[in-house]
């Protein structure tokens, strides 16, 4: 046990039904719709997991010049669709036979899985630990993030570093959308706007991360000795206050950007061009 204090196993009722506490048989006495938030969160996350799993394994309809789906960028295997000037980096060579999305999605997935907001969301929504404040959880034991595997949540900062690199590549992809389907520069379509909105939200979510806040200045004791880092910390803190909203907005925007490319690649419609 990380704390060095091993909790003694409890026999009989524990928690709010412990013998020392007020004798109230109900698990909770909340009268509001407390279940709505965790149920909505779980449904939203589940919908994204289903959609992204389907798209990640599909290995098709992820490129339509000049747009590449954010699920497949950067493309690290040789079996990728050739994208002119695009993010084809065959780091893994030709032995990789599965969808190339699986190689890169590990990093954004790890970043979001260990994110302090998503942790709250799935601990509440999927694991009911707790389902809501002052609503008793159904588990008999609880060790939190003191042991394997949840102690691995502490590697969040490393996923943040990778997330910055991935956001850099997606920024490059967004710049590439200002070409037409013959790769001539100086053009813009509806897809460029979709990608632009997506990359702004991805950066806002990435930079609002709690680990980023710690790295840029939170770890300091004397802000007065580091005025630049203090200023940066202030900006990140402002974004950090919206971390939950940015987490959802960027999750939706990345799915929308991918779906837009899927529709274009599948021939559902032509990309409306502005100029």
């Amino acid at each position, binding site marked *: 046990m*990380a704390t060095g204090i091993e909790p*003694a196993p409890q026999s009989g009722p524990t928690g709010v039904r412990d013998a*020392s506490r007020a004798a109230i048989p109900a698990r909770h*006495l909340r009268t509001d719709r407390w279940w709505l938030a965790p149920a909505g969160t779980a449904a939203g996350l589940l919908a994204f997991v289903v959609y992204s799993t389907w798209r990640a394994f599909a290995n098709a309809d992820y490129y339509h010049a000049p747009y590449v789906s954010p699920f497949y960028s950067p493309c690290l295997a040789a079996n990728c669709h050739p994208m002119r000037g695009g993010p084809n980096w065959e780091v893994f060579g030709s032995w990789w036979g599965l969808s190339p999305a699986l190689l890169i999605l590990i990093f954004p997935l790890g970043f979001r899985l260990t994110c302090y907001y998503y942790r*709250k969301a799935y601990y509440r929504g999927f694991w009911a630990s707790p389902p809501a404040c002052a609503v008793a959880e159904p588990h008999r034991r609880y060790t*939190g993030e003191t042991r394997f595997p949840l102690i691995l949540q502490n590697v*969040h900062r490393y996923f943040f570093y990778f997330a910055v690199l991935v956001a850099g590549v997606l920024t490059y992809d967004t710049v590439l959308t200002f070409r037409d389907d013959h790769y001539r520069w100086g053009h813009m379509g509806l897809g460029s706007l979709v990608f632009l909105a997506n990359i702004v939200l991805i950066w806002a979510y990435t930079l609002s991360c709690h680990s980023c806040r710690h790295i840029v200045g939170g*770890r300091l004791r*004397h802000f007065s000795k580091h005025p630049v880092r203090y200023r940066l910390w202030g900006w990140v803190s402002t974004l950090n206050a919206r971390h939950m909203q940015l987490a959802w907005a960027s999750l939706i925007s990345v799915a929308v950007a991918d779906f837009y490319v899927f529709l274009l690649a599948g021939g559902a419609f032509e990309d409306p061009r502005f100029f």
Partner: protein
Amino acid sequence: MSERQAEQRPGGSYPAHFRVWRGDADGGELRDYEVEVHEGEVVLDIIHRLQATQAPDLAVRWNCKAGKCGSCSAEINGRPRLMCMTRMSVFTRAETVTVTPMRTFPVLRDLVTDVSFNYTKAREIPAFVPPADLGPGEYRMRQEDVNRSQEFRKCIECFLCQNTCHVVRDHEENKDAFAGPRFLMRIAELDMHPLDAAPALGLDRRRTAQDGHGLGYCNITKCCTEVCPEHIKITDNALIPLKERAADRKYDPLVWLGNKIRRRTE
């Protein structure tokens, strides 16, 4: 319009239905009361009226009635709140208002609980270590260096965060290992203090937060922040920064290496 809503009386008063937990460590029950409510009143007013008119032996702990002493913590319709800061106007007139003691601490009687768990935990946190080279009155700190700590100093020690934290609320056995959000926030406050000389004495607050005070039990589900009557961002500004500081010490080989090199250079 419900029957109770129709019963409005002159001066805007109305009869409200209350269920209050009555009992002690040997047992108890929720008892029903009909109590007069006047405009602008808070739940604590109603509990006092109940005491004055129907239940003179009802035990309730209170003091300032201004949301600053942190005495009248209870659970109102299942939500941890201060009775003096919960306006009756947040409930509909037909609504039954259920008031129980905090359900994380041993009950003494009626709405009064034994909160000594918190005092035990407070004593386990090593105090501020004064810098050796400064005497009383010689401390000088820049505002930007103390802003973070000052937010945590707003705490009125109502222990609603301790009460709602599922780590101890739902698991009595974790009380030995886990200090709770209020006292982890205290460690964060001291670790962020620009003049705390604990490191000079070999006291590593970041490491002890994880190893001795159970920071790892916190799964940052933010209930402490939700119930804080002082609106302190306990999770975002204290617990998560403390987790990141503990990660610096225990789980980040790059930071460990950087510190080693810097120390050798110095």
